[in-house]
């Protein structure tokens, strides 16, 4: 929204560009795009010399950036917009992404744990934190960290993936934000060991839903059931706010 107002301001304060100028600008960008694409491929060859899986990881990274930009996917907006504008379109998209990813992780994890979780706790699979995906410590630190992170993401105008994506789009604000994101990370790394020794602030135990709920079946019902309920809720809220209901 602020973007369109700034372009309006800019076009009135400056002489409007002619169609020829615009066509020329587009040709330059397309040519630059093709050159950049070639350079990115070359960089992929270099990364492969440094890392046996480097080129593949590089390709996935580029595809993630391309996808985030093309679909204007923004995790921050998915949590900010319901409050700020009442729109839940991105919230619903995030829920769909979560459900699809859940399906994949479920398959990957079930292959390792066994359908009845009997492999969990054996020598081959000591605990859930060894499974694909991040099964990590949950506790008060998660709440504090998430709350601080949420405030920061909305103020900075982008979360972690969003900041990186907007850097590529040419936002100077995000180039400033990343410097302080890095500085904040250093502060956070220094704080973490202090927090970790405090039993009130930090609980080291990860909680894995299939283990907590006593099996894969209840975990699947709870996981997908909750996501479904949230989707219905988001859809209803968005429609109510936009006056459709």
């Amino acid at each position, binding site marked *: 929204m602020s973007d369109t107002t700034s372009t309006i301001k800019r076009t009135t304060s400056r002489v409007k560009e002619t169609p020829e100028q615009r066509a020329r600008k587009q040709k330059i960008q397309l040519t*630059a*795009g093709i050159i*950049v694409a070639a350079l*990115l491929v070359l960089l992929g060859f270099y990364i492969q010399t440094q890392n046996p*899986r*480097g080129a593949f*990881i*590089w*390709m996935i*990274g580029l*595809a*993630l950036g*391309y*996808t*985030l*930009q093309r*679909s*204007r996917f923004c*995790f921050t907006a998915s949590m*900010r917009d319901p409050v700020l504008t009442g729109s839940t379109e991105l919230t*619903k*998209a995030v829920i769909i*992404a*979560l459900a699809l990813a859940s399906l*994949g992780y479920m398959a990957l994890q079930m292959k390792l744990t066994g359908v009845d979780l009997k492999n969990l706790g054996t020598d081959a699979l000591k605990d859930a934190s060894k*499974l*694909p995906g*991040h*099964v*990590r*410590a*949950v506790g008060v*630190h998660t*709440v504090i*960290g*998430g709350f601080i*992170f949420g*405030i*920061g*993401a*909305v103020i*900075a*105008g982008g979360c972690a993936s969003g900041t*990186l994506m907007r850097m590529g*789009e040419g936002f*100077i604000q995000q180039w*400033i*934000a*990343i410097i302080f*994101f*890095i500085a*904040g*990370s*250093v502060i*956070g790394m220094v704080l973490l060991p202090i*927090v970790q020794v405090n039993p009130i602030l930090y609980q080291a135990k990860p909680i*894995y839903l*299939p283990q907590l709920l006593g099996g894969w079946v209840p*975990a699947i019902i709870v*996981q997908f059931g909750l996501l479904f309920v949230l989707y219905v809720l988001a859809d209803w809220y968005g429609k109510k706010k936009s006056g459709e209901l």
Partner: protein
Amino acid sequence: MDEKKKYPFHEKYFKKEWSYVTGSVLLAMLALALVIVTGGSWGVTGPLGMWGGKFLQLIGINADSWKAYNGSLAKYNFWTDQTAITDLGIVLGAFLSVLLATQFKIKKIKSMKNVWAAVLGGLLMGIGARLSLGCNIGAFFTALPAFSLHGWVFWISIFSGAAVGSQLLKKYFM
């Protein structure tokens, strides 16, 4: 309008925005492809602390002796760090996307408020991500679908943080 008729192929395949749900499907598939091949799941913020530590070393502060790093900086290599590679890929993938769509533009800072927003927002995100052991990707998009409770808890927390952030944004940064 006339450009649309002139370059319908470019318009359709490189300029037109994708739907959010297209994004959902592709992000989920890419994240899964990554973990299937490498065994390491998608994250974003992990390397930031390491880069900061490297910078401190560069200006003569031996952060590696701190408890937080404990010698890990000496061993750190950007190109063997999967998350560092995907982070760089996200920046340049997005850059390629806007170039091919012929929509690249340097978006300048409009006021000092934007600078303070970036400074404060960046610091808070960095601190928050380390305390909760991950960001909106590592502690959420790679955690909640992995049936870890901390992904759900992080979602609720980040949502409440975002609500407070929205109020601050309206009051002080807009």
